């Protein structure tokens, strides 16, 4: 029973985390979903080396345990936990930059803001008219003209 409950918990955490990562619209929720999925993955990895009725893999003088759990996945999980916190801090730093640049943390709104900023940046160098909508441009999207060598648009 215990084995089934633990595997169900690990896979459930992984599934909840990935579903939240895909479905959530807020960028901070996506970071939290990443943390949840990472916890599930760590638990699943540790369960791969678990032996029922085993002892902790600590050798002490005089008493050598006959059945030990596997210490190699434990070392892997130990590394994965620390790397996970590093990834989390990087994601938070990127979120702070996104909020500074676009002023929003909604996923689709941030994408729209970034595209508009990029279009303004490109529009400075070109004479082509700006397309009305980025998601549904009318007709074929015009290619931006190449800047000639002689005339520097800057």
């Amino acid at each position: 029973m215990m084995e089934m409950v633990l595997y169900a918990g690990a896979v459930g955490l992984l599934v909840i985390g990935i579903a939240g990562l895909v479905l959530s619209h807020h960028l901070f929720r996506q970071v939290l979903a990443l943390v949840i999925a990472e916890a599930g993955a760590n638990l699943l990895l540790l369960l791969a080396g678990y032996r029922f009725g085993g002892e902790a893999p600590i050798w002490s003088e005089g008493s050598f345990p006959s059945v030990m759990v596997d210490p190699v996945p434990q070392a892997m999980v130990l590394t994965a936990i620390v790397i996970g916190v590093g990834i989390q801090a990087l994601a938070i730093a990127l979120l702070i930059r996104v909020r500074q640049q676009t002023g929003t943390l909604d996923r689709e709104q941030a994408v729209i803001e970034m595209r508009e900023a990029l279009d303004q940046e490109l529009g400075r160098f070109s004479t082509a008219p700006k397309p009305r909508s980025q998601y549904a441009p009318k007709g074929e999207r015009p290619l931006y003209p190449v800047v000639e060598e002689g005339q520097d648009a800057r």
Partner: protein
Amino acid sequence: MVESIESWIALLLVGVMLSAALVALLSRSHLVAVVSVSVLSLGLTLLFVLLKAPDVAMTEGVVGAGLSSLILALALSRLGLLRSTKAGATDE
């Protein structure tokens, strides 16, 4: 049906962790979500102790539950999400 007490503790912890994960993704307030993620990390720590991995439990408790929660809580204040309960920005 011989079940040890460890099975029931594992069942309880897994239930707490799954519900904390759901609360973290479905709650409206961001502060509640961060606290739920910390609860999930603490449950994972106890589960690691139960799984005969005391070193991993120590690391998870210090780094996962402590440092990670600290980073997330500081990010809350930096991102200005502490009092934001606007609908539309916090669904799913």
